[in-house]
């Protein structure tokens, strides 16, 4: 029986979109990010998962995945944002199958609209069992309180048979999925300082009646 300890020594390959810079990156073979051109890729929207994501510099990403697309997990707390996790495949742009996840509001909005189009088209007889090919054709600047960010233009270009490299499976580990029966972590409340202690009165100074 193997010991259930230690790391796997492997890191999931990924693609990510920097909404601040309108740039796409994949993990380079040496580690770190490597910029790529606007990609065209297969996106496994059938198995997309949503949930609460938190990315903090220098720390491992944290995620609490919704039990299903129509059942939202309770927020784990501050700094967690709604986001998605989905598998994507492109030999040309990504070098194979990668994880695509983000909590960017603009990217999430683009993927939400893409998913709506996917739902509408996936029921057509000619698309059954197939996977959509998504093309990033540009980006639109979005001004908000954080300055200018970009929303990528993602379009369903066509539908193709599912390749062996993109298994019909969940893109997240089961341990990351919120279990409804488990107690959800609730945000703690700030505890004020204790009231200042007044020294006990000197009995010798107390008035006697």
């Amino acid at each position, binding site marked *: 029986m193997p*010991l259930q300890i230690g790391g796997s020594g492997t890191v999931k390959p990924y693609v990510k979109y920097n909404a601040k810079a309108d740039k796409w990156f994949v993990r380079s073979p040496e580690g770190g990010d490597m910029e790529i051109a606007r990609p065209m890729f297969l996106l496994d929207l059938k198995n997309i998962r949503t949930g609460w994501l938190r990315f*903090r510099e*220098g720390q*491992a990403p944290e995620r609490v995945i919704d039990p299903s697309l129509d059942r939202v997990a309770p927020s784990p707390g*501050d700094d*967690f944002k709604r986001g998605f996790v989905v598998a994507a495949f492109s030999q040309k742009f990504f070098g194979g199958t990668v994880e695509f996840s983000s909590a960017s509001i603009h990217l999430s909005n683009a993927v939400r609209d893409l998913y709506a189009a996917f739902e509408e088209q996936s029921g057509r007889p000619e698309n059954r069992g197939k996977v959509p090919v998504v093309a990033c054709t540009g980006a639109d600047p979005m001004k908000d309180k954080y300055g200018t960010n970009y929303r990528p233009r993602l379009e369903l270009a066509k539908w193709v048979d599912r390749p062996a490299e993109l298994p019909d499976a969940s893109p997240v580990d089961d341990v990351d999925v919120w279990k409804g029966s488990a107690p959800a972590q609730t945000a703690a409340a700030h505890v004020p300082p204790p009231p200042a202690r007044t020294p006990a009165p000197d009995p010798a100074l107390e008035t006697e009646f």
Partner: protein
Amino acid sequence: MNAHAFERHGVGHLSASSLNLWAAQPALWVMERLLGRRAPMGITAARGKAVEHGVHLGLIDPAKPIDDCAAEAEREFNRLTALAGDPRRDEERLKIGGYVRGALVELRQYGVPDAYQHRVEVRLDDVPVPVVGFIDWRFSDHGLIVDLKTTERFPAAIGDPHGRQGAVYASAHGNFGMRFAYAKPAPGKKEPANQVRVYEMSGDDVRRHLSALRLIALSLGRFLALSNDPRELAGVIVPDFESFWWSDPAARAAGREVFGF
């Protein structure tokens, strides 16, 4: 559990931080604690130590100007990181004073602590060696133990690693309350613009974390019992160098020597 498993590897006691490391990165635990290849103090740990030093000076002397405490903390940070090659050193140094000022405004309201870096020791069922720890401050007038954490962002709640640490402190102090003060370098933009948040552990939290510590310690004992040879033990686990636990270049370099890749 056979005490020899710990003894033969020279493990005379455990700590919450050691058990947290074992739980998170067993390979790093083996490298540091069994093979003696300790990673240098990280910049974040040095920040925490330095801020704690400055805050302590301000707590034991309520009349000491906060700016003096901040300056002392910066000196301590410079001392601790004198040989550090971390590029974040200068950036972190600039924040030291802010952490100290914010923490002192909050914690001076607790009064003067009557214990600092006080050693505590607890025993866990079936674990043959004690778990020791050193509390930050004890305020016996209020029945409280307070541990200071520096952070860039407030956590939503006390996380498991801190909770385990607090469980050791609290269980060694009977019915004292255990609080964690999370200090940021500057007030946030949200209203109210807090710079410090203080969370208190419940009795259930303490029990739950003690239970977890016991299971983690038992797991460690079983692992140590597999072999008398630390190198053989290192050979059955695999490090995850992508983990932030291995972010220090010196630690990764040592890890490559130990684990061979």
